[in-house]
């Protein structure tokens, strides 16, 4: 029905497709009445938050739904034919020869007991015996591994999946997917668990390979940025329904559905800060399939809902070059109604720099010694260690936020645990408001513990599932605050209101809470002790964007009210730059760059920061900007490269000096500088801004 670009039947057509999952004796419809057509050679994005049904739809197309799932309504056609009528034999010999999938988790999607080469060969010869050396199948498999950028295909082919890094595993799956030269490639969040620099190289690769072969792509993702970079056309799913379907350029320039608009307003854009722009989270949460509203599925959360919206489900109507399922899409397109969520009240902030230091960390070091074998002991081999954190210094000021950014293996979480005293530091000094802290938590005074608190990444693991919210929150008041039961209860109620929950939540257990609510409780618990400094370790990373926006706003608001200093750790530079006043970039346990947030985001940058910024997908389709990619893998923290630790991957590698000498601190302006051998003027002259001006290059003809 929709999106039938080009002539004739599209390659894939969803016609009024509903998918249901069995829950006990009932069936609940996770996907309802989806119409979608993917033309040959088109790159289609399928965007939605968790619970939107986007992966279900992809699995239904590939006929690999879990046993409890079933297409209960509608037809999925491939080249015009109803796939449900095809017997398994025909699916194998025709359908699976023409479609392929790259899943979200590369490691579990590879058979742990088979060598990588054999798994690639199996695509080329699904029924055959293991290929022999020098055979045609073996040769093709190796060529495929080379095509996805493996420097040494022979070695990769003879490795087992667990011996490869996450990025390499995903390359293997892409090699497998493309080995059969499919006409349709389904990518289900293929880069979600990868570092941003790895994600960038993988996306480059997909773009390149797909363009070469004219393959159609269904790209399933929660990330609007990634989709903007890659797709011609985007479909937005909400609570199992298709709410908007449009060419990328139109969707990003002017969304026609309030939910799409809400998604855009929830994402921190690189270069915006909470001082300049407030995120506008979508209130409420996605309805469960068992309790859908009678009319439009988005109506309860919609800022522009009218009476008719709750009467009947709107149809998918044409809007511009696309489709939207909204009664008011015409008014939105004409600019007669504002589909934005109301902005939270703006608050004036003091940007004064000379505020007292709350937390000072100097030359922090954390090594995990490796055990020596008996032979090594006898030979007096020097003891080796995992050098998770080598030399990290940072300062958190009262009422301000320091963002600590780095990819996996940078040591940022280890640094947090060392600062908290959970894993005692091996060296360096930690000072909290002028008071030196012992490395080991057990040797810190209760007062010091009270004043330095942490919010973990996974509130699931940080909250005891058997304890009510009230019991979890009461504990810090009683232990660290010395309050009696009744007083503590009163404070718990107030605290729950502060994190925008109701006091009734005190009697609930973690299992009864949504992900965002759990994170609110974790934040409340950290604030219960009225700490001066809070450490957030990837505290919003696992959340959907609309929930993440609300939590980011909450964190910002609490800081203004209470004046706490934050150490905010994240791999997401856009989120960090949004929240933080200062940013410190770390790589392999070393600081690369540090300074006020707006300075770190503009040239001159450290070459590593430059690569990180260049790798972040922007919400601007077709944006023109610097293209910097990192080669190779992050070195092992056991053998940290000498000189500058970044020299093995640095795109601006100078030569011997980077290998032999530790780089000097070059200060660009007050408080901002980089550790680099390249003079600042040279960096400044050759670096383009990572954040393009709004509007520049935005006009790209999508679809």
């Amino acid at each position, binding site marked *: 029905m929709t999106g039938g670009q080009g002539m004739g039947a599209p390659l894939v057509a969803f016609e009024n497709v509903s998918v249901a999952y069995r829950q006990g004796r009932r069936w609940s419809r996770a996907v309802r009445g989806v119409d979608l057509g993917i033309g040959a050679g088109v790159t289609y994005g399928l965007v939605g938050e968790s619970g939107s049904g986007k992966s279900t739809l992809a699995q239904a197309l590939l006929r*690999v739904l879990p046993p409890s799932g079933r297409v209960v309504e509608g037809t999925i056609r491939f080249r015009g034919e109803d796939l449900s009528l095809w017997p398994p034999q025909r699916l194998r010999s025709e359908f*699976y020869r023409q479609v392929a999938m790259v899943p979200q988790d590369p490691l*579990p*999607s590879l*058979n*742990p007991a088979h060598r990588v080469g054999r798994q690639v060969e*199996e695509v080329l010869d699904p029924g055959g015996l293991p290929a022999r050396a020098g055979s045609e199948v073996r040769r093709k498999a190796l060529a495929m591994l080379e095509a996805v950028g493996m420097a040494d295909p022979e070695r990769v082919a003879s490795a087992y999946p667990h011996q490869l890094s996450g990025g390499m595993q995903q390359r293997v799956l892409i090699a497998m997917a493309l080995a059969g030269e499919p006409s349709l490639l389904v990518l289900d969040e293929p880069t979600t668990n990868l570092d941003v620099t790895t994600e960038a190289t993988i996306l480059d690769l997909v773009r390149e390979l797909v363009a070469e072969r004219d393959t159609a792509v269904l790209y399933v993702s929660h990330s609007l940025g990634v989709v903007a970079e890659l797709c011609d056309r985007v479909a937005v799913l909400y609570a199992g329904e298709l709410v908007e379907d449009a060419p990328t350029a139109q969707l990003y320039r002017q969304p026609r559905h309030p939910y799409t608009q809400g998604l855009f307003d929830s994402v921190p854009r690189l270069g915006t800060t909470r001082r300049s722009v407030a995120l506008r989270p979508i209130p409420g949460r996605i309805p469960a399939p068992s309790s859908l509203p009678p009319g439009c599925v988005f109506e309860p959360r919609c800022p522009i809902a009218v009476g008719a919206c709750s009467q009947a489900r709107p149809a998918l109507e044409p809007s511009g070059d696309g489709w939207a399922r909204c009664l008011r899409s015409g008014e939105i397109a004409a600019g007669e109604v504002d589909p934005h969520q109301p902005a939270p009240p703006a608050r004036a902030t003091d940007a004064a720099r000379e505020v007292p230091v709350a937390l000072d960390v100097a030359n922090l070091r954390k090594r995990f010694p490796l055990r020596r074998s008996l032979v090594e002991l006898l030979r007096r081999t020097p003891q080796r260690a995992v050098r998770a954190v080598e030399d990290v210094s940072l300062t958190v000021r009262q009422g301000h936020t320091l963002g600590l950014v780095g990819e996996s293996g940078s040591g940022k979480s280890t640094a947090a645990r060392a600062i908290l005293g959970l894993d005692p530091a091996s060296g360096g000094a930690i000072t909290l408001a002028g008071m030196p802290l012992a490395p080991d938590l057990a040797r810190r005074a209760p007062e010091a513990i009270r004043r330095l608190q942490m919010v973990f990444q996974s509130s699931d693991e940080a909250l005891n599932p058997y304890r009510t919210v009230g019991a979890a929150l009461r504990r810090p008041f009683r232990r660290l605050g010395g309050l009696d039961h009744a007083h503590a209860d009163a404070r718990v109620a107030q605290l729950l209101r502060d994190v925008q929950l109701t006091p009734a939540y005190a009697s609930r257990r973690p299992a009864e809470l949504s992900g965002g609510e759990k994170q609110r409780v974790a934040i409340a618990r950290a604030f219960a002790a009225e700490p001066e400094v809070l450490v957030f370790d990837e505290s919003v990373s696992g959340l959907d964007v609309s929930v993440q926006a609300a939590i980011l706003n909450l964190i910002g608001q609490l800081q203004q009210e209470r004046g706490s200093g934050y150490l905010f750790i994240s791999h997401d530079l856009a989120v960090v730059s949004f929240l933080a006043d200062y940013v410190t970039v770390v790589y392999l346990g070393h600081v690369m760059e540090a300074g006020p947030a707006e300075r770190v985001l503009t040239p001159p940058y450290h070459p590593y920061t430059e690569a990180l910024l260049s790798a972040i997908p922007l919400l601007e389709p077709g944006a023109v900007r610097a293209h910097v990619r990192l080669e190779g893998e992050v070195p092992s923290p056991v053998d940290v490269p000498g000189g500058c630790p970044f020299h093995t991957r640095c795109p601006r590698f100078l030569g011997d000096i980077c290998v032999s000498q530790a780089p000097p601190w070059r200060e660009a302006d007050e408080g901002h500088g980089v550790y680099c051998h390249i003079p600042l003027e040279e960096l400044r002259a050759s670096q383009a801004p990572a954040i393009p001006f709004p509007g520049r290059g935005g006009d790209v003809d999508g679809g």
Partner: protein
Amino acid sequence: MARFLLRRLGFLLVTMLFTSLLIFLITQALPGDVARVLLGREASQQALAQLRAQLGLDRPLPLQYLHWLGDFLRGDWGTSFSTGQSVRALVLQRLGNSLQLAGITLAVAVPTAVTLGVVAALYEESWIDTLISLASLSVVGLPEFITGLVLIQLFSFTLGWLPASSSIAPGTSLFRALPYLVLPALTATLVLLAYVARLTRASMLVELRRPYVRTAVLKGVRWRRVVVAHVLRNALLPTITVVAISFGWLISGLIVVENVFNYPGLGRLLTFAIARRDVPLIQAVALVAVLGFALANLVADILYAAFNPRITLQ
């Protein structure tokens, strides 16, 4: 790998040394005076003292232990108090019988159990899965002496196909002994079957839900091949460990089964020795049994690593 083996063998040695000490101390603590047991109640004090000196029982305990251990390592396992035979010859002959029974049991039990487990998992929650689960659970609930007696009643007394007693004479060839082995092996199989089948079913279900299965299906691989080449390969890992360890149990732990069928294995030898306070015999059987267990564990680890590329032995 060689390093791993060396380390594990050293570990095994320490284990054996420790258990030998434990066995020695326990047998010392057994009630009753060995000399009195040997000579009878009417023996004179003089005769008792003489025998004690002859057996070395009057020496201090540590010395007795070292002597016993030294003799044992040299291959002199002593003479049975109750039969007067060489303990070593007796134990080794019974060990051979136990190995026969264990081998046959595993050869029957493992393929059957794995097949049942795989079928139950592939047809999860269907009638066939329910039937296999019900049958295996009801068998595992019955103690061996009941299943053994039922089998004897059925196959020996009612049908008359197989002998009721399996007391084979020493030196009987495997071929001649086979009819005597069927019923005890079957009884032991029933004990093992349910356990291994349910384990296989559980790990099959876990593996069948792993994303690599979907990857294989999407490659266009036939379902039968997906199951055999992809799923089974991984699902059998826990089974391998359990089977290898069961082997240790089959050698020395089949006390009830061997007694029901009067089968001359190690387990029955142990009960015989304990009943007669035959200290040298108890010590030897116990040590051999522990060694069997320890070796089975070692083999389990090696096999597990051999089939699991994620484990490297070092």
